[in-house]
């Protein structure tokens, strides 16, 4: 008859809230914890890549394998921090920061032409030829005042995306 939420104390919840910059309410943290436990089938205290892929809706996402690099082996605090970019309370800056991290595969703070090409390949699969992809990307980069050899940093991403109506909001079901 125990309730899973009773396993989180008020202190735990507050600690997690601080860790994610108060992007989620206490009730949402409790819900996320239940979800975390559900996904953590091996009760390891972390969610493995395999366990994430067992959610079919996630597995069919074109970016799932790329996201998995950020997701593999997250513990609960990291799990919440990962999702905090999708909170309605997160700022646009935080959301763009998240998008930048998805692109920046080696984490050095610079996004190269190849990084962008990789993501575009994930999104379009075999439905655009490699050559065409390269053409399109070169073209739009030049149009925006960059070149094929430009290294884009976070502030470039902010400049490019801040007016494009980035909408990244996921509602945490609270019962």
């Amino acid at each position, binding site marked *: 008859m125990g309730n899973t939420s009773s396993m989180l104390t008020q202190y735990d919840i507050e600690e997690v809230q601080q860790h994610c910059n108060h992007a989620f309410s206490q009730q949402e943290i409790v819900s996320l914890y239940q979800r975390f436990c559900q996904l953590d089938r091996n009760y390891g205290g972390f969610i493995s890549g395999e366990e994430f892929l067992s*959610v079919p809706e996630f597995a069919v*996402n074109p970016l799932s394998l790329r996201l998995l690099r950020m997701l593999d082996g997250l513990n609960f605090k990291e799990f919440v921090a990962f999702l905090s970019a999708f909170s309605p309370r997160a700022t646009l800056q935080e*959301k763009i920061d998240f998008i930048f991290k998805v692109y920046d595969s080696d984490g050095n703070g610079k996004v190269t032409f190849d990084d*962008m090409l990789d993501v575009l390949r994930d999104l379009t699969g075999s439905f655009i030829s490699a050559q065409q992809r390269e053409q399109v990307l070169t073209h739009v980069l030049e149009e925006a005042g960059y070149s094929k050899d430009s290294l884009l940093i976070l502030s470039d991403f902010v400049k490019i*995306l801040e007016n494009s109506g980035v909408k990244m909001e*996921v509602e945490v*079901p609270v019962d």
Partner: protein
Amino acid sequence: MSSPGELKSSSSELDLDRPNIEDYLPSGASIQEPHGKPRLRDLLDISPTLTEAAGAIVDDSFTRCFKSNPPEPWNWNIYLFPLWCCGVVIRYFILFPIRVIVLTIGWIIFLSSFIPVHFLLKGHDKLRTKLERCLVELICSFFVASWTGVVKYHGPRPSIRPKQVFVANHTSMIDFIILEQMTAFAVIMQKHPGWVGLLQSTILESVGCIWFNRTEAKDREIVAKKLRDHVQGADNNPLLIFPEGTCVNNHYTVMFKKGAFELGCTVCPVAIKQSFTMHLLQLMTSWAVVCDVWYLEPQTLRPGETPIEFAERVRDIISVRAGLKKVPWDGYLKYSRPSPKHREGKQQNFAESVLRRLEEK
């Protein structure tokens, strides 16, 4: 024996003609078609795809299908607590032994009649089948009685005639026993090892049950042939298929496998709802199993309808009657990954929109 099911097609070969998953999923990111040549920000903005991914991590319809819903605790109130304690004493020290005794008596009666009937009446096949049918119904009744099953059957009782197949939604092993108590159905189910396998190959074989092995692809054709032969026989027990192929909780239905719907038979839907909806019943759950069974209007393939569409139509009928939500997933995804086909669909949409906009000058 927990997963009677149907096996005809593997998940991968089904993907081509199955309903579109996008029709079911909430379209989290609205895809308004942008116009004009693509700009850098259009290509870099991956937020819709990311939102979908995060949405799936936070909550997804597939996992919900198999989540067991714990009954709401009602005993946390200090005044009810003594009452609950009495309940525990009664359930564990009075009801439980009685149930064990009932079940034991059931098995003794069953085995002491089944064994002689099975081995001594070898020459009189008709009589033997009839007796065995009755005995299987009997032992299932004992099972239901031992959990204090309160089962309400609605609609006409199934009849024995060729060219018909019964399909039911599947929540647990209990479904099978509840249906079997009324009518000795022949069921398609997963072959199990151990003592369950022994029961399968002796007792259940006698009512005409058919086994399959989910993991063996070769098995499929043999079973499909057995199925076809079975439905042709005039005196065979009615055939029961759980087309979901796996157990789903009592709030959802997953995709029906199409095998049952391409036999060219009349399909009789059976809806089963283990109803824990009313508060009073909820209180009873630990005391008894409360369940409704509806035998529904037989359906036939309409002209021009594919087996998949037919399966979906029958799933509709069952879901409405039993108050279940439909989800677009194949239950076998519990054992395997979704095919790349679904991902390719998303990729194709995106690629086409980029290409289209490139051509706009």
